[in-house]
């Protein structure tokens, strides 16, 4: 069974290699080859899952070492895998949703001449993401971590001829690199503290290390998670990342890659549990981001960017839950899985809408689409109900638990976190209702584009709608399935551990409060976007709206401080290098040259003047000799 883990990663990797090096003859069959290998990976995952279910809770972890990777002195990094319930959950999500999105892309990318490469990149992403979750040590995890970053870079910038796409891709990679810096420092700290960075020994030994070191490790891991999961302050790349093709946004920037930060924190739970300061930082980041993302999501008119804000916000919930410690780990992962379903579904729906609307993304130019795209409308609608936490659907179960756990943190902190989570739920309801209303209800607002092509909204082909339907099923039932009998909790508990929190108010009260804010959010959105017609050009809006449209000015801050500052710095350094450092060198050369220029004048070519110097020299020598004699 252990050998299958390697195959799990190898199958999509093979696909990537074949598709990227295969050349033109694979252009036609490429999409299917990629989809097939993703499906193979999913089949392997199911086989492993079945095998795992056959064993009891504690014995479910599979570990295997394939080969020794970097052995240098006391530094040993192995290529080794660890598959436990936590990894398994991710593996199933990644391969399952991944396969569906491959299938969807077959239809979505049908007319793109570079689709072979697209599928190669998608397969590469799957391989890296699977490596990330099945890695047995932090360094191998880091390989997957940067691997998904690369795949994300390639896919965001897939339409490279658009400068905006190329810039967005670069930005995503760079911001992620800042996070990666955190991860590499964390690994170095682990190495100096424990002498290893394999999961087992590090997490077992966590209790013995000094709290200062653990706090440092925790903060660095948090930095890494912020980069990958688009949390404040490294969240700015996610909105721009929507430049990529929509299936990419669904798979990478909603369902899987962006949740890697949550995985990292949950995986390192033992470290965080021993470092309360780091945990406080984690919940703070989570709470801030869940509000930040939600506010940004309210103001965007671009359907994908609105969904991106929502993703940021939902991951904020997960990070918040993960930061709560054993009380929250299970719920973080549970929300992650349900979110994987409904957010992927929502993005695929958005893609389907764009597909039918000549790639228009501005929601102000949609309207009334429910008549034209019934399947998309229904699946999107179910995803919408799931994300706002409509009772009975997936999001309800997972989000409610997180809000509860946040209150259970206790004290002022608990009230603040719980309040933030509750407020976030209300805003979620608002912005999602807004998206829903602007897209599928109201008047039709689309117009011919600059070339005079009016969009003809139509339902998408089967390859696209089937994955949407399947994901809609997941959005509806996954949460309930997990919550019944605490199935999910029991499944994950052996790995993450679990503690029951005691909220200051009863669970029922929390649920009721959530319902109230939910209704408020929906009602407010309906009052603004359902009752009144939506203007095609965006109104100026309040200062908050304007700021939120600009990602709460964070991009402006980045631009002024980092980009401009960096440009000035490099430019002045280039100047310094040229004038000062090189100036010393050239100056030395010039002064030697100048000196010899003077000396050269002595060589005037007149034989007689040479003779004079000879005589003079001889005379001086003789005089000196005589003088020395005399003395």
């Amino acid at each position, binding site marked *: 069974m252990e050998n299958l883990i390697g195959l799990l990663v190898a199958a999509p990797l093979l696909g990537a290699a074949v598709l990227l090096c295969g050349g033109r003859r694979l252009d036609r069959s490429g999409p299917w080859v990629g989809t097939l290998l993703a499906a193979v990976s999913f089949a392997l995952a199911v086989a492993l899952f079945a095998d795992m279910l056959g064993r009891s809770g504690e014995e479910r972890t599979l570990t295997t070492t394939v080969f020794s990777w970097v052995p240098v002195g006391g530094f040993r990094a192995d290529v080794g895998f660890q598959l436990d319930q936590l990894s398994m959950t991710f593996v199933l999500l990644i391969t399952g949703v991944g396969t569906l999105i491959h299938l969807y892309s077959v239809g979505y990318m049908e007319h793109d001449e570079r689709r072979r490469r697209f599928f190669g990149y998608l397969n590469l992403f799957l391989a890296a993401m699977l490596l990330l979750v099945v890695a047995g040590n932090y360094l191998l995890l880091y390989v997957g971590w940067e691997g998904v970053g690369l795949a994300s870079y390639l896919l965001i910038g897939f339409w490279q001829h658009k400068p905006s796409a*190329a810039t967005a891709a670069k930005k995503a990679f760079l911001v992620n690199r800042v996070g990666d810096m955190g991860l590499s420092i964390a690994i170095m700290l682990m190495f*100096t*503290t424990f*002498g290893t960075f394999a999961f087992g020994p590090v997490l077992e030994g966590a209790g013995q290390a000094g709290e200062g070191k653990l706090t440092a490790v925790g903060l660095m891991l948090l930095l890494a998670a912020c980069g990958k999961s688009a949390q404040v302050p490294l969240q700015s790349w996610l909105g721009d990342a929507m430049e990529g093709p929509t299936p990419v946004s669904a798979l990478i920037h909603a369902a899987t890659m962006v949740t890697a930060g949550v995985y990292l924190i949950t995986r390192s739970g033992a470290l965080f549990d021993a470092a309360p300061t780091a945990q406080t930082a984690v919940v703070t980041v989570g709470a801030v981001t869940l509000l930040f993302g939600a506010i940004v999501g309210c103001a965007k008119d671009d359907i994908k960017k609105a969904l991106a804000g929502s993703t940021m916000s939902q991951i904020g919930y997960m990070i918040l839950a993960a930061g709560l410690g054993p009380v929250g780990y299970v719920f973080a992962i549970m929300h992650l899985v349900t979110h994987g379903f409904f957010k992927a579904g929502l993005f695929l729906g958005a893609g389907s809408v764009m597909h039918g609307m000549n790639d228009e993304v501005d929601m102000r130019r949609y309207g009334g689409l429910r008549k034209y795209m019934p399947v998309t409308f229904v699946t999107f609608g179910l995803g919408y109900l799931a994300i706002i936490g409509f009772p009975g659907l997936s999001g309800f179960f997972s989000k409610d638990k997180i809000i509860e756990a946040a209150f259970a943190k206790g004290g002022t902190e608990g009230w603040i976190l719980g309040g933030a989570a509750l407020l976030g739920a209300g805003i979620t309801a608002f912005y999602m209702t807004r998206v829903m209303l602007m897209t599928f209800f109201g008047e039709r607002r689309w117009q011919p584009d600059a070339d005079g092509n009016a969009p003809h909204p139509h339902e998408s082909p089967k390859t696209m709608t089937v994955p949407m339907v399947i994901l809609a099923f997941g959005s509806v039932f996954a949460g309930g399935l997990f919550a019944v009998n605490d199935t999910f909790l029991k499944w994950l508990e052996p790995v993450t551990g679990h503690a029951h929190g005691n909220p200051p108010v009863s669970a029922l009260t929390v649920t009721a409060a959530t319902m109230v804010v939910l209704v408020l959010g929906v009602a407010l959105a309906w009052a603004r976007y359902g009752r009144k017609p939506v203007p095609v050009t965006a109104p100026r809006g309040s200062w908050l709206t304007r700021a939120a449209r600009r990602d709460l000015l964070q991009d402006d801050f980045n631009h002024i401080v980092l980009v401009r500052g960096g440009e000035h710095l490099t430019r002045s350094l280039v100047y310094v290098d040229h004038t000062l450092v090189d100036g010393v060198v050239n100056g030395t050369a010039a002064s030697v040259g100048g000196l010899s220029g003077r000396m050269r004048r002595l060589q005037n070519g007149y034989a007689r003047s040479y003779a004079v110097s000879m005589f003079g020299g001889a005379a001086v020598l003789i005089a000196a000799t005589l003088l020395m004699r005399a003395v």
Partner: protein
Amino acid sequence: MSFPLLTATAVVPAVGAVATAAVPAARRAAAKWLALGFSLATLVLAAVQLVRFDPDAAGPFQLTESHAWIKDFGVRYELGVDGIAVVLIALTALLIPFIVLAGWHDADPLEGASPNWRWRPTQGFFALILMVEAMVVISFEATDVFLFYLFFEAMLIPMYFLIGGFGDRAGERSEEETAAQRSYAAVKFLLYNLAGGLIMMAAVIGLYAVTADQLGMGTFSLQEIVQARADGRLDLAPAAERSLFLGFFFAFAVKAPLWPLHTWLPNAMGEATAPVAVLITAVVDKVGTFAMLRFCLQLFPEASKWATPVIVALALVSIVYGALLAVGQRDIKRLVAYASISHFGFIVLGIFAMTTQGQGGATLYMVNHGISTAALMLVAGFLISRRGSRLIADYGGVQKVAPVLAGTFLVGGLATLSLPGLAPFVSEFLVLVGTFSRYPAAGIIATVGIVLAALYVLVLYQRTMTGPVKDGVRGMPDLRVRELAVVAPLIALLLFLGVYPKPLTEIIDPAVGHTMSQVEKSDPKPDVPVNEAEAAK
């Protein structure tokens, strides 16, 4: 007497150089094939070295050869390789065929130039490359300080002609202007390195004087001096040891190049053709960092420890400064040059971190940097030869017209920014870990370098390869078979060593252990060591 393998590895390219130079003017193609043949023969010999080398054997050097040479001055012809040298010789021998192949048309006479039986630039170009190879190989092999010094300096001569004599086609600049800049670059290269060499010569003579004074007869033999120091027969006063160390180090720091002695590199790499630029940064400069490990640390362990804080600081400046300047460049080749300065900072940092991981990583870094820079720079060279311009601003949208070229360029770039899965990641991480475990602050500052590396690589890629297709780029042909034959193996190697670097680390590790024992340093211990059995699992 067994077959002198080490001598043969150096002599074969030297013979090749002479043979290539002797090819008549009309038979240019023959000269190319001859050069390629000899470089491949050297590669075979280097491979034999690698196979015959036994990493676990006792004693610092293997395959040794020793003959008296200049008896009056105690100069011996002493060769020997340790794990570090044998790997670097393999790198050199590996890269030269690619350099030859990549520069296949770089030295063809200009079209329309009048045929002249004496004018043989092609023959000269390839002969000089082989000459450099011979000298570099013997520098890696020499265990006699004088012998090393001789070839360390002598390789400047062919390099000078390679930089000054051959450059890119003028493109939009006038022929006179390029020629002037080229000769400026070549002279700068020569003078910089000569200055370093001159100071080193004083130190070499000083070393001789000290040994002559204390041992009764002067010697340049590395092993003898190390042995004498271990026995206590040779006792250097701290002041003397430090000044000798500085003399050696200065020369190596110029060659490496370390901030602030780096300014020759961008000029030289910018003006030389891409294959020669690879020769400079991937092969010749490695002699500098290699010599720090072999000579500075082994001959002067105490002084090395004394100078460590300053050198670590300079290395950090190099890393950050080189990367920042790379970001600010407008010229593709100069950008790669500044990136190399940043990478050399990492190598020096690793060496002077004085940990197994640091030094092992630094050695591995030398190899990986050689391969990755070769990949990036050679593809850049192919790009430049198509457009006739080195300016980043003249490109745009290349991936649309030449996707394979863009793809290989990206892989080279990703290797330069140390993406995991590609070889440079392993070495860079080892250097970082090695540094961090001794100097945490330095480790963290160096980590900033990886963010900046991503910046300059991606900005370069974005500006040249993506976006709308620019006018001069339209109709640009994709990589030809010869060019693909150069790049594909390099990329394959980058992937292989990224996934499975063990064959190299196994060879390097014992040698690094030996160097570490010379400086009497051991790795810092972890705070809470988890038990070994668990760690092994």
